[in-house]
C-alpha cells in the first residue's frame, strides 16, 4: 500500500467512517502488525493536532473580524495614549480638578457647537470620497468569463465573495505592489488580477492609514516577476499645470484617464497629497499617477465629493519615506524603487502599452 493510501485508511478509521466489517478487519491487522499500530497512533495524534489547528485558526479569524467590525463601527476606539506611569500618577492626583475643569469646558464647548449648528448653514460632514469600488455579482461573472476565455482559471474560491476592488501597481519586480490603504480595509484575503485576467494571491506587507499607502506582495507560484519595471519614481515636486495620466480599474477592464496637476496640496491644504484635475471613479483608488516622462508622482486615492473632477493623490515622496521606516523595522523587506524611467521620451500610447502590464486590479475578500 502506498503511503498516502494508508493515510486515507487511517483517517477513515479514526474519524469513524469505516463500516463495522472493514473496521474489524483493520483492527485485526493492527493487532498483528506493530508497525501499523505505531502509524495509527501517530496519525491519531497528528490529526488531533490538525483539527485543533483548524479550530484555532477559525477562532482567531473570528477574533480578527470582530476587532475590525467593532473598530469600523466605532464601538472600540484607539485611545492614542502614550501615557507613562508618571502621567497616570498625575491623573490620579488631579482627577477631581480635571473632572471639574473638563465638565466646564465640555459644557461650554457643547454650548458653542450648539450655537454653531443653529446659526451655521449645513455643510457635509466629510467632503471626501474614497474611490474603492463595490463589486456587483454581474461583474464578478463577466470577470470570471473573461478569465476563462483567456485560459486562466480563477483562483478565488467559489464560496468567497469579492466585495471591494481597487487598483495597484508594481513598485519592485520581486512582486511588491502599492495601493491605497483604504482599499484593503477589512480584507481577509487579497487577489490581484493582471490585465490578462490572471489572478494572483497577495498578502499585505504593511499599511499606513496616515498616508493611505499599503504595500502588498504577490505570493503565488504562478507569478513570474518581470526583469525590470519600465517606469521610475520621482520625489521632485511636480509643477502646476503639468500633464499627468493614470491607469485604473473603475470597471472590470483597465481604463486610461488624463489630466493635470491643479494644486500642490490636497484637501484642506494637506501637504502629503496633491490635487489633480482628472476623471476618477470608484475603483481608481490605488492607481499610479504618471507625469509625461512616465515617472510615478503619486497614488490616486480620493476625490472631493462636493466638486467635479477634483481628485487627490498621495505624493510619491510618501512611498519613499514609508519604505525607509519599514526597512528600519524589518530587515527582510527589500523594496527598491527605480529612480529613472526607461519610457521617457516615447509617445503616450507606447508608454501606456509598456506600463499597463504592471497595473493590477485589487480584489478584496472580506471573509
Amino acid at each position, binding site marked *: 500500500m502506498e503511503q*498516502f493510501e494508508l493515510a486515507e485508511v487511517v*483517517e477513515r478509521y479514526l474519524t469513524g467512517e469505516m463500516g463495522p466489517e472493514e473496521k474489524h478487519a483493520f483492527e485485526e491487522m493492527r493487532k498483528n502488525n506493530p508497525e501499523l499500530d505505531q502509524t495509527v497512533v501517530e496519525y491519531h495524534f497528528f490529526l488531533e493536532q*490538525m483539527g485543533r*489547528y483548524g479550530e*484555532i485558526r477559525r477562532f482567531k479569524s*473570528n477574533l480578527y*473580524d470582530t476587532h475590525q467590525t467593532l473598530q469600523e463601527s466605532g464601538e*472600540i476606539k484607539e485611545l492614542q495614549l502614550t501615557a507613562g*506611569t508618571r502621567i497616570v500618577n498625575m491623573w490620579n492626583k488631579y482627577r477631581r480638578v480635571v473632572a471639574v475643569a473638563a465638565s466646564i469646558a465640555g459644557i461650554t464647548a457643547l454650548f458653542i457647537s450648539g450655537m454653531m449648528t443653529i446659526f451655521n448653514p449645513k455643510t457635509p460632514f466629510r467632503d471626501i470620497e474614497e474611490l474603492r469600488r463595490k463589486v456587483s455579482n454581474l461583474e464578478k461573472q463577466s470577470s470570471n468569463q473573461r478569465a476563462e476565455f483567456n485560459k486562466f482559471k480563477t483562483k478565488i474560491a467559489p464560496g468567497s465573495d469579492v466585495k471591494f476592488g481597487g487598483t495597484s501597481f508594481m513598485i519592485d519586480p520581486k512582486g511588491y505592489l502599492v495601493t491605497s490603504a483604504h482599499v484593503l480595509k477589512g480584507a481577509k484575503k487579497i487577489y490581484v488580477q493582471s490585465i490578462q485576467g490572471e489572478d494572483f494571491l497577495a498578502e499585505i506587507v504593511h499599511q499606513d492609514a496616515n498616508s493611505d499607502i499599503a504595500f502588498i506582495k504577490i505570493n503565488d507560484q504562478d507569478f513570474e516577476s518581470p526583469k525590470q519595471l519600465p517606469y521610475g519614481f520621482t520625489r521632485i515636486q511636480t509643477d502646476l499645470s503639468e500633464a499627468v495620466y493614470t491607469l485604473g480599474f473603475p470597471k472590470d477592464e483597465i481604463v486610461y484617464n488624463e489630466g493635470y496637476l491643479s494644486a500642490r496640496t490636497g484637501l484642506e491644504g494637506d501637504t502629503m497629497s496633491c490635487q489633480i484635475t482628472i476623471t476618477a471613479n470608484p475603483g481608481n483608488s490605488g492607481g499610479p499617477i504618471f507625469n509625461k516622462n512616465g515617472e510615478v508622482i503619486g497614488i490616486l486615492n480620493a476625490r472631493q465629493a462636493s466638486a467635479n473632477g477634483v481628485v487627490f493623490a498621495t505624493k510619491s515622496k510618501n512611498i519613499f519615506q514609508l519604505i525607509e521606516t519599514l526597512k528600519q523595522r524589518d530587515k527582510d523587506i527589500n523594496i527598491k524603487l527605480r529612480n529613472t524611467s526607461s519610457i521617457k521620451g516615447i509617445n503616450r500610447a507606447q508608454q501606456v502599452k509598456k506600463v499597463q502590464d504592471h497595473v493590477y486590479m485589487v480584489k478584496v475578500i472580506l471573509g
Partner: protein
Amino acid sequence: MAITDQELGVFKSIGNNDKAAIEAVYKENYSLIQYFVTNNNGTEDDARDIFQEAMMVLYEKSRLPGFELTCQIRTYLYSVCRRLWLKKLQHSRRIETKVENFDQIVQVEEDIEEHDKLNLQYQTMRTAMGKIGEPCKSLIEAFYVHRKNMLEIAGFFGYTNADNAKNQKYKCLVRLKKLFFAQYKNA
C-alpha cells in the same frame, strides 16, 4: 459576585466559536484591557494582541470538559491579560515600575501555563504548514481550516474530480505529518 446563567451561556458559546458571543465579550471588555495595557507602557497593538491571546485562553477553558467558571468573564479576562502583559514586560525588560492594579484579580497562572503548552503545539503545526509549500498548504487549509468538502476543493483547485483531489490531499498530509513530527521533536 455571583455568576449569572447568561454569563455561563456566553462562556460556553465562546468555546463553540460563536460570533455573537465573541462580539459581546469584545464589546464589554476590550476598552478595559486597552486602558490597562496602554497605561502600562504598551501600545494599541500590544493591547489588541494581549486581549486576543486572553480570548484564546478563555476559548481553551471553555472547551475543557471539566472546567468551571468561578468568576465573571470580565475578572477572568482581566487577570489573564494582566498576567500575560506582566510576563511580556518582564521578558522585554521594559518594566520599570509596578504595574497598576485597579481591579480584582483571580489566580490564572496554571491556566496560562496550559495555554502556553497548547500554543506551542499550534505554533509547531503552523511552522510545518509554512514549510509545506503550495498547492499543499492551500489544499490542506481548505479542508481542515475552512472545512470545504472535497467536491468544492476539486473545483477550486482544478482537479477533474473529488477522488483526484482526495489523493492529492493525502499525499500532502503524508508530507505534512513528516514535517510536523520533525518540528515536534525539535520543540
